[in-house]
């Protein structure tokens, strides 16, 4: 794990356009991490304190099912953010997450970031808006999956 230069952090899609002084504040609460394939980021039900901005590789969100392989809910990759549960009560992970291939990320220290946001409202607002946009994007993707996009038209009644 390494401290992160603000210039590197500002290049992540999630933070693009954020004021440089705000990125510099975040950089003090962020580490650059390299996660080997198979590395477990968190487990369902465990306390949620961190958030990751992926820069390379792939992470799978999963739901363990007793007696069966874990269900993969979604995979996330470069440019994505992982970890919303640290923001709101009960501050517990709702799913698990594993790096499925060698992965690089910026790891944000949740409590430290929250303290920064309390102290610097502009940073807090910017971060909240970005988290909201990421959550909306994921919600929309989930809704699209519910549509069963690849089903044949007309329920297969014609042709």
């Amino acid at each position, binding site marked *: 794990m390494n401290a992160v230069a603000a210039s590197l952090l500002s290049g992540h899609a999630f933070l693009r356009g954020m004021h440089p002084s705000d990125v510099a504040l975040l950089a003090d609460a962020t580490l650059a991490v390299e996660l080997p394939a198979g590395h477990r980021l968190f487990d369902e039900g465990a306390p949620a304190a961190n958030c990751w901005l992926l820069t390379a590789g792939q992470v*799978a969100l999963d739901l363990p099912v007793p007696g069966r392989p874990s269900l993969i809910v*979604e995979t996330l990759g*470069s440019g*994505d953010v992982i970890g919303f549960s640290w923001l709101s009560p009960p501050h517990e992970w709702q799913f698990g997450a594993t790096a*499925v291939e060698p992965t690089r990320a910026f790891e944000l220290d949740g409590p430290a970031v929250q303290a920064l946001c309390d102290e610097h409202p502009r940073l807090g607002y910017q971060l909240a808006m970005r988290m909201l946009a990421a959550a909306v994007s994921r919600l929309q993707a989930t809704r699209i999956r519910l549509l069963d996009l*690849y089903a044949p038209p007309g329920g297969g009644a014609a*042709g």
Partner: protein
Amino acid sequence: MTAATLPARYRVASRAAETHDTVTLVLEPVDQPIGPHLPGQFTMLYAFGIGEVPISISGPAGPGLVQTIRSVGAVTRGLCEAGAGQVIGVRGPYGTGWGEADAAGRDLVVVAGGIGLAPLRGALLAALAARERYRRIVVLIGARSPDELVFAGELQAWRAGGADVLVTVDRATAGWAGHVGVVTQLIGRAQLDPAAALVLVCGPEVMMRLTARALCEHGVPPGNIRVSLERNMRCGVAECGHCQLGPLLLCRDGPVVSYARAAPLLSVQEL
């Protein structure tokens, strides 16, 4: 009947199961073949005694005719069950092609949903055969589950041929190591150059609308997105009007249409 509407007899040379409900037939002419085709065009396939349906050509331009068919009704079931040696009727080819060569010097991006990969396969193979003409060739594929991926056995060859291939499924099964999520999520991961990309999109209509919208949000101009639209193709020669979509007769003006032209039509309920 004119030559354009008279079926030619073709014999099934081979049949390969792609998924539980989809097969690829390789057809060879019994008598006079139909005219040369472009990737993206379709034919009317006639299961004798059952009926006729429009099916996209899934092979590259050339003497052979490769058609991939999903069994969704009586006619397609009859075609899917056709074994080697069986004779079927073929009319066409009809409609517009993808025009993949327009991406020469730029990036060619192919986005497929489900069996929508079949009409794109010919364009992709043609581009890979002339790989040096393009900068990147990117293939983004979405499917319900790994066992519903068509042409799954060819993906590695496409990668080896110089394409960046990303595949995502809605529901992973044991052993699946690829992406899980909707195909639109692959657009961001592919790190496209939106100003330099010609994007060909094929799949169910809702999937194409959402994909085109996501591409536009990533900066791809609507005029650089092409979609393949399907309506009730019957005559194939723009005479019967069954395939009308607003001002378009899709058997002639489509199936491949610029999204800039198609977008205003795709959200009109009455069309």
